[in-house]
């Protein structure tokens, strides 16, 4: 029952996004320009960025992209339409479908970002499978956390500032683990070194997901 609802709502999100592609195109252009601005500010020859900086810069760009992309998941919809959803579906269905949709969106953006970033700033990554696995976990984590934060922020008047200040401290634990695993992947360390960190990352995702699932009905009702 819930699964069917989630599937329907998810399809609705994708179709809506596809019909008005300007938002999607906008955020993709945002990724490309952000990478390019960073590249030009460092004023570097290709590949001469130090590995630690490469890693940190990549994840900071990802963080800002995530905040901007996910911020609109609740703010975009008009009040009347939200009330309509409220009458026809369960809050659990809504939050799960939004999270699922945001994971898809984040994956698209993450890979776009990675490709552009690697092309202009060089590519020091040695262990690609670990890096991609990490990117996958990060996308899931960022979308889960920020979907909930976006739901909270959308209730306020200055929602774009609040999205950032509510989101940053909450996402720090995840970001720290992601940066650590990503550094291991760049250095090509053995998988056993990052095994623990990956587990912690998955655990954080699970905690945040569960808490969102429990708390969202209260947010939705208000």
């Amino acid at each position, binding site marked *: 029952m819930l699964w069917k609802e989630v599937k329907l709502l998810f399809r609705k999100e994708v179709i809506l996004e596809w019909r008005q592609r300007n938002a999607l195109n906008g955020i993709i252009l945002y990724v490309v320009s952000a990478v390019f601005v960073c590249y030009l500010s460092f004023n570097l020859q290709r590949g001469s960025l130090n590995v630690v900086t490469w890693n940190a810069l990549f994840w900071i760009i990802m963080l800002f992209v995530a905040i901007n992309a996910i911020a609109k998941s609740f703010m975009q919809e008009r009040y009347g339409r939200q009330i309509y959803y409220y009458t026809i579906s369960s809050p659990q269905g809504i939050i799960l479908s939004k999270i699922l949709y945001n994971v898809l969106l984040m994956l698209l953006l993450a890979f776009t970002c990675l490709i552009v970033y690697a092309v202009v700033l060089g590519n020091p990554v040695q262990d690609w499978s670990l890096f991609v696995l990490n990117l996958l976990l990060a996308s899931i984590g960022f979308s889960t*956390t920020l979907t*909930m*934060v976006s739901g*909270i922020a959308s*209730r*306020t*008047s*200055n929602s774009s500032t*609040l999205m950032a*200040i*509510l989101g*940053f*401290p*909450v*996402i*720090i*634990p995840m970001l*720290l*683990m992601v940066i*650590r695993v990503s550094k291991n992947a760049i250095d090509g360390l053995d998988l056993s070194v990052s095994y623990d960190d990956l587990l*912690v990352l998955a*655990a*954080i995702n699970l*905690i*945040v997901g569960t*808490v*969102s699932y429990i*708390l969202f009905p*209260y*947010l939705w009702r*208000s």
Partner: protein
Amino acid sequence: MNSLLKKSWWKVLAVVLMVYTITAGLLFDVPRLAILNETIRVLYFHVPMWFGMLILLTVSVVYSIKYLGNPSQKFDNYALEFANAGVIFGVLGLLSGALWANYTWGSPWSSDPKQNAAAIAMLIYFAYLILRNSLEDEQQRAKIGAIYNIFAYATLIPLLFILPRLTDSLHPGNGGNPGFNAYDLDSKLRLVFYPAVLGWTLIGVWLTSQRIRIRAINQKLDERSEEEYIPTGSRHAAADEQSAYSRPVK
């Protein structure tokens, strides 16, 4: 809890413990140690701030959960004021820690995991206070505040496990530094430390209970003035009036 707050024995206890902490903390013998020297006395004033902060913030989250189960204004007042007191303790802890670190570690900020965790906790709770102030409607403010409070607390817990894995702490008792047990051969430090923790926490609870009462009185006064000045029948004007009155009372 309410009946406990109205009793006075714990306030007397708090005062006695504070007097003891300050006199004994400054006058008693402490172990003579290189680098630390007399600064070891910071144990009685800085470390209890963290205990107090964690206890007060945890109580705040408990009241937020209670609020979601049973939306009454009282629980929201409790959650807000305990968070406020926790923030005060956190800021005092950061300041006293930075002052101490300046003389023992050589710089006020050394990217120590505990310092970072405290700073992140402060970021979360400042965001919580700003979130509350940017919501106009009183019930929405309480509800959404409670939701963020619980959500943020749930993500803060893994942080406390993660940060120490990333870098070693410089704090005594971490990362190969000798702790409390090694310094304190005759348990002299403990004799003051444990009462200090209890005393500071009680002071925090006392402060919070005063603030809760002031808030409750102000809310009562607001309600009364609304009843007196607004003629019944014009519900619309009453709603406007209410949002004007419901500005946070500081």
